[in-house]
């Protein structure tokens, strides 16, 4: 076991993959000389050289498309789109090429591509730099979407993604990079098919992922002090969703609250809520609740941004209502 940050965990997986497989390479804006906007790839250029760690121009649509092309032709690209905010510029390549080429070709081609990007708000970066668009990606057939919320998953899910024959999009919540934990630094790929029960409970199910998981865990602790045992589920993989794990929990607790940083309307939280009703209607003692981001472009001022993002207290208050 070794203590490391979420950032170091991603880096260790990148280093391991680059060392183990010559077809793997990392490409993106400032992943090399700069060391990565979040210092994730720090040191990798020196270790693996310019061929394997490629700084790209500011051309999101083209370097994401180039990742697709390279994956179609025998390479194992890992494309870093600095943040999800900039991935909008590459959305056509994602939806119209990465997600469709295998199907449109009748299965002749597949695209072993991994795309990583930072996501989320909470750092006072304002409206253009604080998006949480995982829900949009989770809507797209033909790709897998992962949201590692723990240091172990930050490493294990990336290694697992590199074994998938199809495109995998990994969302790393920017507030998690400094998070530390003890992990087995020799552990390889982990499961990326199932959600995980992060805390067992009997009274209510809190469903979260990525940057929302810590908030759900905090809420669960507060609730425990009040005698309410919350079960916390980390979705982990946002597409395809592992609803079995979620439904099994709700059947036990009869109540569910979904925490999602995205804007409420059209959020993935709405999808999870709808599926819980579809699959466990009779088990529900209370309508599934959602604690989501306020429907505003994320404001800069701290007190305003705090008010715009989901908070553990809101989760606690919501649950109190349900178990009264």
């Amino acid at each position: 076991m070794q203590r490391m940050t979420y950032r170091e965990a991603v880096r260790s997986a990148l280093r391991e993959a680059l060392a183990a497989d010559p077809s793997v390479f990392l490409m993106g804006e400032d992943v090399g000389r700069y060391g990565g906007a979040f210092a994730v790839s720090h040191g990798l250029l020196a270790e693996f050289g310019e061929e394997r760690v490629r700084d790209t121009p500011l051309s999101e649509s083209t370097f994401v498309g180039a990742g697709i092309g390279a994956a179609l032709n025998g390479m194992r690209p890992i494309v870093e789109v600095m943040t999800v905010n900039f991935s909008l510029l590459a959305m056509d390549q994602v939806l119209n090429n990465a997600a469709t080429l295998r199907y449109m070709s009748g299965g002749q081609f597949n695209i072993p591509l991994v795309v990583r990007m930072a996501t989320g708000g909470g750092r006072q970066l304002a409206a253009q730099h604080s998006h949480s668009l995982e829900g949009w990606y989770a809507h797209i057939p033909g790709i897998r979407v992962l949201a590692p919320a723990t240091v172990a998953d930050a490493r294990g899910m990336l290694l697992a993604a590199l074994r998938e024959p199809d495109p995998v999009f990994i969302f790393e919540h920017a507030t998690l990079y400094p998070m530390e934990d003890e992990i087995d630094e020799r552990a390889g790929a982990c499961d990326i098919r199932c959600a995980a029960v992060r805390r067992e409970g009997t009274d209510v199910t809190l469903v979260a992922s990525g940057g929302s998981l810590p908030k759900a865990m905090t809420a669960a602790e507060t609730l425990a002090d009040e005698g309410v045992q919350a079960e916390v589920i980390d979705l982990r993989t946002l597409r395809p969703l592992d609803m079995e794990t979620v439904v099994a929990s709700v059947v036990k607790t009869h109540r569910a609250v979904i925490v999602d940083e995205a804007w409420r309307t059209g959020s993935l939280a709405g999808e999870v809520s709808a599926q819980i009703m579809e699959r466990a209607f009779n088990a529900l003692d209370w309508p599934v609740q959602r604690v989501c981001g306020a429907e505003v472009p994320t404001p800069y001022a701290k007190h305003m941004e705090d008010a715009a993002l989901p908070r553990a207290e809101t989760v606690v208050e919501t649950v109190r209502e349900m178990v009264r």
Partner: protein
Amino acid sequence: MSEPAVSAPSAQPPERDHALLLLEEMFRIRRFEEKAAETYQAGKIRGFLHLYIGEEAVAVGAMQALTGDDAIVATYRDHGHALARGMPPGALMAEMYGKANGCSRGRGGSMHFFDASRRFYGGYAIVSGGLPIAVGLALADKMRGLNRVTACFFGEGAVAEGEFHESLNLAELWQLPVLFLCENNLYAMGTALERSESETRIAVKAASYRVPSETVDGMDVLAVEAATRAAAGAVRGGSGPRLLEFETYRFRAHSMSDPDLYRAKEEIERWKERDPITLFEERLRGWGLLTDDEQAAIDERVGAFIDVAVAEAEAGPWEAVEDLERYVMSE
């Protein structure tokens, strides 16, 4: 960085068999497209149908300069490229019928032909969407040390898209083996080039990325072949990407649903006088390389070629609806 200049008609008579092959391949495309249009009218082909009639010399000439190891990226107007690449006509016609024996198992249709065995990476229906893919294919070849060319066909309309700019820059910056082949048929649907580009000389644009380029008479199959051989050779030699602009024209409307109200009849007629097939026939006859008998033989072979395509499409099975979700993800 070369300045645009229409290359003079290649004076040298070509080697006979090769010349007749070029002619027959252009013929195949012409007849295939005519049949596709006819079948579309009959309601057996649906969706969008973009014909390549008038532009045959581009795909046929360019493809001659590429080897089986090279990769092809095309657009939604991809029938000519697929045929010139040697894809079986039955698989193409069947694809347009939506049959399971189609080259994309009926999932792609006219705009999305694919053939992994021939490194035909498909027709892309989002304008400029194929350029970044081509850059990536070439990047992989370069990193893998494979001396192969990725030929990327696109229309002049794609030049206005940001991806054209980003792709030419990245290909040149990283010295990737991409051969950018611009089919300048003067119109993007109903929008004429001079109404969409402040600088209409595409070669000048290529120069702004330091990508060597040349403007070629796209109605002269020999000129197309020669220019493509030279450019592909340079790309293969490792000196980075090249761009060729082929001046051509589509004799039909943009697609079957286009009323074609934006082009003067006279303009269309003038270009039809430069029909790449008729032009080439005349020159071959002038060189004494084409006789009436050969012409008849070609007609007959092409007729049979088309008949086979239709027969295979008609006889082909429908994909089982149960397989709707098949190929979304790898099994």
